[in-house]
């Protein structure tokens, strides 16, 4: 509280006068020699005390009236921070940022956070607006700014802990956006969290508007103590025992942040059943490795979980993963009936090297290719052969439309003889052969390193295409709906692609052997062929698990949809997205790997299931999602550092809602506290008058 005219407070010194008089009178008590105390001694002493008390009341009334009178003249007023509720200077816009990362599930943190959020709502006055923002990896406004505080409280009650990690920047940026659109003069942020270190990056450039008051509520109180399954690895051992069956060894790393060693039973579950259990002891503030016995890789994608007993933070006590069956990419290379010697050798040999992925290459002369040979192929290579016609051609087109890839190296073939259906699908219009044998040959000069085919070569010293010489290649005319992935040094397209249904058709302007180019003899040939085959065959590294908060792009995870290609190829007429992704909680999302609905957010921990059009529930492709293990690091930072980083003191041009912008006289004039003090003083004086008159009458 401040005073406009504090000099009047000197009047409070007058309060000492009656007290001094009382004390002085007590000290200088008059001595009266009286003839006899006979009658005085008969008066009961109790009545003396009662009357004394009444006079003390009188003294108190007079003193209080004096205090109120002096206070009224001193013109007091309250500054904005001393006021709660509806402001003197306007209503408040309060944004409540509620951390719902999975670390908030530790102990009773979440309950305390909800209570704090509701308390922040109840603290508001009627005119104030509140908004609830739930955040973990990102932030979402759960309500619109509203004066309906009950609705905000209900939203708090309905909120639950997520499986995601913590990031403060998105929440604070959202709060800043909310304030930017607010017309209320006062802005407040209440941040309720456990303030984990991992959530705040000092490089995050977030600033709240000047004058914003930020309050933090720390629900943690201290670093957590618990165990977690921090990591699981699956090492595949192909045909280790010579029985043609791959085996996988599951290993898990457990962490213990407690101050004491802990002994726990670690369980490996496969396909929903306990496969093995081990008892291990994790040292205090340390980790321990657990290795399970090798197990045969199931024929189909199988769910796996490494689990420890539930503790204070249950989310990281289980780690989910999937074990996929053989993920080899099946490649069919179709070469002419009278192929050149080693026409497909370089390609086949390059694809045969490596096991991530494994390429199962089948080279066949065009006459030996049947529709059965196309079954299950991820990539078909037409090595200087024309696309087949008839049923075989149709089957091939269907396979491509279902998601397989088609790599065409036309050589010197003339596309005019090709079936019209194929000509329509080609990504280019084939031109004449460009002969550069008279020179040193052309080179791949312009490469799109952002393209998945050449991403691997983006880093320096990852592959030099300038060493390869291309002596002959076809001139290509590229329509607008095709994409040029690489060009020769003369600008002519070298590698062009075009989508065909859910698959891709990629055309290489030169040959795949050393007939027209020495590219197959260069070190970059092998990785280029691998990347090209993976891209065209829509292969992506099979992920044993995802992290909550990841976005699943089915267009880039062919291993997840490979089981449904046949069904997808058949079902091309319905307009609905053909695949269903069901979350652990039962929420279903329709997805189309080749359409616009190919993205899905994986927000829940556990196993999602991707099912085809006719796939029974429980028989789909499992997709494991785990919590962000970085969130298991419960170390904390000082919330004040965050407040200091994102808030700024009101600048010279700050909004008028700031106290500094409003004169004290104006504040006092609006509050008129002096009027109430004066009225109270007058009432007390009237009461004192009545009481003193009564006492005088009773005395006389």
């Amino acid at each position: 509280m401040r005073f406009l005219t504090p000099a009047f407070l000197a009047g409070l010194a007058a309060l000492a006068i009656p007290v001094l008089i009382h004390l002085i009178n007590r000290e200088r008590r008059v001595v009266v020699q009286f003839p006899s105390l006979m009658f005085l001694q008969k008066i009961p002493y109790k009545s003396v005390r009662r009357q004394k008390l009444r006079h003390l009341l009188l003294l108190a009334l007079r003193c209080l009236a004096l205090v109120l009178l002096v206070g009224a003249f001193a013109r007091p007023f309250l500054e904005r921070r001393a006021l709660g509720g509806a402001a003197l200077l306007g209503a408040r816009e309060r944004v409540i940022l509620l951390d719902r990362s999975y670390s908030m599930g530790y102990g009773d943190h979440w309950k305390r956070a909800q209570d704090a959020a509701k308390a922040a709502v109840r603290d508001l006055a009627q005119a104030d607006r509140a908004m609830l923002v739930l955040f973990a990896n990102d932030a979402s406004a759960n309500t619109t700014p509203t004066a309906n505080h009950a609705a905000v409280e209900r939203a708090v009650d309905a909120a639950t802990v997520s499986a995601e990690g913590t990031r403060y920047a998105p929440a604070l940026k959202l709060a800043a956006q909310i304030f930017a659109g607010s017309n209320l003069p006062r802005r407040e942020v209440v941040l309720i969290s456990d303030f984990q270190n991992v959530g705040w990056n000092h490089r995050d450039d977030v600033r709240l508007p000047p004058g914003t008051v930020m309050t933090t509520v720390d629900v943690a109180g201290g670093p957590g103590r618990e165990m977690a399954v921090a990591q699981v690895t699956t090492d595949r051992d192909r045909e280790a025992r010579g029985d043609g069956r791959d085996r996988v060894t599951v290993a898990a790393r457990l962490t213990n942040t407690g101050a004491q060693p802990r002994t726990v039973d670690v369980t490996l579950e496969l396909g929903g059943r306990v496969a093995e259990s081990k008892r291990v002891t994790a040292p205090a503030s340390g980790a321990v490795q657990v290795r399970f016995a090798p197990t045969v890789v199931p024929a189909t994608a199988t769910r796996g979980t490494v689990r420890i007993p539930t503790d204070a933070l249950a989310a990281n006590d289980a780690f989910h993963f999937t074990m996929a069956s053989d993920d080899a990419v099946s490649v069919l290379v179709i070469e002419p009936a009278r192929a050149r010697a080693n026409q497909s050798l370089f390609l086949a040999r390059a694809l045969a090297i490596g096991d991530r992925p494994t390429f199962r290459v089948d080279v066949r002369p065009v006459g030996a290719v049947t529709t059965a040979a196309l079954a299950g192929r991820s990539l078909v290579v037409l090595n200087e052969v024309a696309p087949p016609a008839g049923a075989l051609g149709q089957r091939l087109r269907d396979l491509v439309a279902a998601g397989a890839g088609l790599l065409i190296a036309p050589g010197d073939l003339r596309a005019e003889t090709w079936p019209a259906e194929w000509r329509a699908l080609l990504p280019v219009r084939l031109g004449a052969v460009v002969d550069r044998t008279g020179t040193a040959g052309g080179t791949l000069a312009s490469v799109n390193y952002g393209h998945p085919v050449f991403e691997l070569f983006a880093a320096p010293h990852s592959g030099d295409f300038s060493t390869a010489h291309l002596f002959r290649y076809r001139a290509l005319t590229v329509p607008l709906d095709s994409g040029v992935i690489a060009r020769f040094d003369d600008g002519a397209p070298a590698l062009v692609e075009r989508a065909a249904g859910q698959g891709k058709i990629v055309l290489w302007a030169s040959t795949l052997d050393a007939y027209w180019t020495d590219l197959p003899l260069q070190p970059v040939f092998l990785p280029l062929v691998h990347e090209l085959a993976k891209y065209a065959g829509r292969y992506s590294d099979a992920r044993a698990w995802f992290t909550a908060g990841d976005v699943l792009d089915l267009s880039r995870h062919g291993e997840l949809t490979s089981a449904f290609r046949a069904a997808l190829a058949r079902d091309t007429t319905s307009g609905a997205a053909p695949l269903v992704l069901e979350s652990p909680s039962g929420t279903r999302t329709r997805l189309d790997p080749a359409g616009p609905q190919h993205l899905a957010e994986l927000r829940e921990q556990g196993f999602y299931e991707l099912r085809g059009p006719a796939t029974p529930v429980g028989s789909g492709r499992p997709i494991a999602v785990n919590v962000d293990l970085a969130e298991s690091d419960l170390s904390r930072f000082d919330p004040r550092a965050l407040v200091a980083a994102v808030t700024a003191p009101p600048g010279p041009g700050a909004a008028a809602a700031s106290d500094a912008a409003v004169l004290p006289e104006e504040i006092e004039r609006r509050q008129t506290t002096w009027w109430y003090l004066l009225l109270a003083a007058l009432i007390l004086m009237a009461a004192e008058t009545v009481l003193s008159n009564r006492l005088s009458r009773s005395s006389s």
Partner: protein
Amino acid sequence: MTAVAPEPVNFLDPAVLARIGSLELLARVVVEGFINGLHRSPHLGSSTDFAEHRAYMPGDDIRRIDWRLWARSDRFYVKEFEAETNTNFLAVLDVSRSMRYRGSGSDATAVSKLEYGSFLAAALSYFSSKQRDRVGLATFDGELVEYVPPSAKHLERVLQGLQRACQTPAAAGRQPSAVSPQPSDSPPPSAVRRLPAATLLPPLKKLSESTRRRCIIALISDLYEEPDAVMDALAHLHGRGNDIVVFHLLDRTELEFPFTDASNFIDLESGDRMPVIPDYLRRQYRELVAQHTAALARRTREARVDYALFDTSKPLDTALFAYLSSRQRLSRVR
């Protein structure tokens, strides 16, 4: 005998008279007004003034036989003369410390209760002396201090005794006694030298044994005792056939308790101290005083004792009216 009719007279305020001089003059001046137009005393005595005959009884002095009446009536009668029927007047004055109170502060008056009582006693003595009554004086302060037996020649001694009473310091000889118990609901007094309070009973009892003849006794005191104790003390005198007039003297401050400041009140008799906030106690004090004086008036009336309450701030004339009323009653009895 003819009843004395009181006549309105103007008396000087004792406060004014105090400036004049000796007590005798004061008494003479005060009383002269009564003497004017006063009829002869109804008293009989051994003077030469014949008063009346009465039948001879064996043992009478034969010199008093009226032989002429025997010659006429052949019966023996003796003569009664005026001197034989003069009464005794005894002023009994309380000279205790409480009587020396003369008010307090701005309420202080020029005369104390003792001085006022002395004036009253002197005036009554002088008046009685003019009536050829025998006058005497007894002063007491818990016990008899001075005793002047009633005599026709003792007026001077009475006045001198009154002079000494006023001039003598109060209670120089009495020793402190044990602390008397306080009422249970009263605050304990502070530890100061406490003297026994003066009481009426011992001196009045002794006085009753000293007086052989019937007297008019004017008891002049502030009567700071319970009515029962006062009546017990008076009973000794009254039982001897004395006529008692009680003059209850109180200062105005004792009656109204006009004090305002919180003060330590000291009992002049006992020395007890008591912190008093007058505003708190005034009403109840006045009630107690009124109850006390009313009780005394009732009890004395029942005992056929005259009682008069006097405010020492008022003139002395009213005191004399009380005395004359008493005298009137006495004459009707005869």
